[in-house]
């Protein structure tokens, strides 16, 4: 029994650790100013990994959060970060700022 499972786990590990073809992901920029995202709506290509570079121009921290895209990341005040999203199917994916959710809201259109 154990040997059988070992074989399954071995194949899983082999597959996961195989170096994937890492292509340069197209980069998009989002800025945070006065607890708002600019742009608040962004269009990105479908079935493509995308790099979002997020600049937080506010002195306060913010967190980019999206259950739709399975991402959450804190961006410290007056700093920037990178978030990789996708590949995503066509559709709309919402995100918001966890620290200022009433104002910091946005949407990614995938087409």
């Amino acid at each position, binding site marked *: *029994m*154990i040997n059988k*499972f*070992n074989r399954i*786990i*071995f194949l*899983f*590990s*082999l597959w*996961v*650790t*195989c*170096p*994937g073809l*890492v292509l340069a992901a197209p980069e998009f920029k989002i800025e945070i100013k006065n607890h708002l995202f600019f742009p608040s709506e962004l269009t990105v290509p479908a079935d493509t*990994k995308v790099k979002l570079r997020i600049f937080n121009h506010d002195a306060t*921290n913010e*967190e980019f959060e999206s*259950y739709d895209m*399975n*991402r*959450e*990341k*804190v961006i*410290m005040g007056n700093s920037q970060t*990178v*978030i*990789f*999203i*996708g590949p995503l*199917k066509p559709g709309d994916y919402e995100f918001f700022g*966890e*620290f*200022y*959710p009433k104002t910091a809201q946005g949407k990614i259109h995938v087409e």
Partner: protein
Amino acid sequence: MQKTNDYFKTIIKCIGFGSLILTTNVIADGLTIDKVYHPYVQPLERELEFRWLHYDDDKTNSNHVYRLGIGQSFTTNWFVEAYVISQNNADDSGIEAYELEAKWQLTEQGEYNADWGLLFEIEKETKQSIWEAATTLLIEREWDRLVGTANLALAFETGDNIDTELETSLAMQLRYRYSRALEPALEFYMSENTLGLGPVLMGEQRFETRKKLHWELGIIAGLSDETPDATLRALAEFEF
């Protein structure tokens, strides 16, 4: 920056190769059903954690294991948590061990075909002279709404009350991201004396800004004679 990326890629390849060797012969003592760790760290993250495990065995009948932890991230990719572990059964009760763990997020989520992290743990039993140190490789990969996670652990035990030995164990989780409030998952655990598989439900309840409760509830069925027929596990994590 390029040098840093090359450095991480080399580490990942070494770890990956190590995990392949590790998984060809998984061995470990005792019941290793616990929880599946994810390879991510958030800056400013702080949490209180409570875990409960219940199983019946032939020796001590009903066993309850409680674990209370407090954790804090110290940088963008390091998270440290301290635990007090207690056990309650017919023979014994009270604080069983103290544990300190540190999680290191190695890669950016979604950058490569899988996300990688490492977990370092050190545990000291209170009633016996037993020390345990472990390193666990954390791997996670997404397929749309399905998320697969694997934890491959290498542990070293030593002390006056135990033979010095090296142990390995494996935990895997396949989770469906149905909604923030409810996510069903299937978990698999394997080590020398554990072979278990079972369903787990989990979810997240948000409160005020940056305050949320994550919960997990599962039942793991034993698939070998050494593994308890059913192990109940529950977890509550309060982030603040």
